[in-house]
């Protein structure tokens, strides 16, 4: 039987000397009373930090919102000419800033829709399937109604951000968002 190390300061939960403890406890000795007492306080300190992080996150959202509000409504931008797309065809464009991919789909002679291309589930690019009446996200088989962007199947729960459109002089203009953010 190994001799007890006089420098070991740990106290087992049952208070018996270390040579009477199982091997695993001798390998990983802990001062049980102190550990119990101190770790709870440390845990509470950690909870305080987590709580502060949530407050920071909440105000970060508020800050982003106010930045967007201050930036104002996105500018009106010409994105296509009306006869550029046949019925059922789609065109990619960037709106309102470069890098924000959106997709314009012609549903009929006079009917156009445009959405942000990021799926609202995990941001995969969605693909138009006007023949099936939907926008399809191939990553997780998400489907959105092509007429209004509402999720109809798969994991997405939020509608696609819809770009407002206007037809003028045979041209299609984007004029802000109807719903959602990109």
């Amino acid at each position, binding site marked *: 039987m190994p001799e007890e190390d006089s420098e070991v300061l740990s106290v087992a939960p049952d208070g018996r000397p270390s040579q009477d403890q199982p091997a695993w406890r001798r390998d990983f000795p802990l001062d049980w009373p102190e550990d*119990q*007492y101190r770790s*709870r*306080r440390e*845990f*509470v*300190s950690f*909870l*305080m930090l*987590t*709580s*502060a992080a*949530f*407050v920071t*996150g*909440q*105000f970060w*959202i*508020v800050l*982003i*919102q106010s930045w967007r*509000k201050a930036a104002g409504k996105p500018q009106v931008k010409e994105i296509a000419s009306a006869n550029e797309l046949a019925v059922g065809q789609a065109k990619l464009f960037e709106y309102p800033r470069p890098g924000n991919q959106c997709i314009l789909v012609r549903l009929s002679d006079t009917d156009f829709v445009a959405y942000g291309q990021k799926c*609202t589930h995990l941001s995969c690019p969605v693909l138009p399937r006007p023949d099936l009446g939907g926008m399809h996200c191939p990553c997780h088989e998400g489907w959105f109604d092509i007429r209004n962007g509402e999720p109809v199947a798969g994991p997405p*729960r*939020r*509608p696609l*951000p819809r770009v407002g459109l206007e037809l003028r002089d045979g041209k299609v203009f984007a004029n802000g*968002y109807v*719903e*959602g*953010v990109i």
Partner: protein
Amino acid sequence: MRITQFAQKQRTTIISGIAAFQMIIVLLQLWLFTTTMETFLAGYQETALPAAFASVVCFALNGGLFLYLRSL
């Protein structure tokens, strides 16, 4: 009785209770945060500020409990 005169066993019980209560508050904050994020991404702007203030109230409550704990 002054709070510093609690026996260690009593203090341990109090600390456990405070930790459990704080955990519930932090879970509430987590729920607030995810809900706010969901509504923000869906394009609604009305909920962010009230939710942020609610989170501050939770944090203040947590802080109060934390200070009480330090005085034990």
